[in-house]
């Protein structure tokens, strides 16, 4: 048991903000995945709205409240309605027999892996510098 606990230490108990952040981020991430993976175009648009609300919540958590409201006002009020209008105006794609994706999936995943690597590097360096500086300040 000790070895297991040493290898996989229990995560520290989250603070209140972290406890809010985790479900919010999960919601945003799942919605973002649905935007690109769901085959139904209208579901994509709804998931996009979910993502936008999640991002607005993240802004509120970052104490950028005006930005959170702007996000909802501009994105959810106008951009998502425009997208829905565009979906309705260009019908016929929804039930088409052709595949929803093109043949670039491999390339795209390669690109995302590269971005993920860069992001990981940033993550490590950011944790080593910025978190420490904040802890000092």
């Amino acid at each position: 048991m000790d070895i297991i606990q040493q290898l996989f230490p229990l995560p520290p108990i989250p603070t209140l903000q972290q406890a809010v952040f985790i479900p919010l981020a999960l919601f945003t991430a799942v919605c973002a995945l649905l935007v690109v993976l769901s085959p139904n175009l209208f579901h994509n648009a709804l998931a996009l709205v979910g993502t936008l609300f999640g991002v607005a919540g993240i802004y509120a958590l970052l104490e950028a409240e005006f930005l959170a409201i702007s996000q909802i006002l501009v994105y959810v009020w106008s951009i998502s309605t425009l997208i829905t209008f565009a979906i309705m105006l260009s019908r016929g794609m929804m039930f088409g027999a052709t595949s929803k994706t093109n043949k670039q999936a491999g390339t795209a995943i390669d690109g995302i892996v590269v971005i993920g690597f860069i992001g990981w590097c940033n993550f490590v360096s950011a944790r080593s510098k910025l978190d420490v500086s904040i802890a000092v300040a």
Partner: protein
Amino acid sequence: MLTQYGFILILSIFAFALPTAAVMMGWFLGPRRPDAVKTATYESGVETIGDTWVQFRAQYYLIGLIFLIFDVEVIFLFPIALAYKHLSLFSVVSTITFVVILLLGLLLEWRKGALEWS
């Protein structure tokens, strides 16, 4: 400040739970005997013809487009209102220019017939 948004968060949880509970209660209390006629699309007793996806007119998109312009404008106007008591003459003139340009844009849309709905 985060306490305030905490309240909004808790309120939104309740605001979501309340109608969900009501709908669920209706689902449990009411009878459930669906049949083919009952679950058919309602069209005043007539058989539905064709696809739901009727072609919409592009006017809807145009309204959305004009709305978007003014929506972004609102975002830029409200912070100005909060600081209006501190603004210098230069900022006031530039704000007024901003609103005048918007009015001119509205006039242009009017002249081009984007506001007609018929």
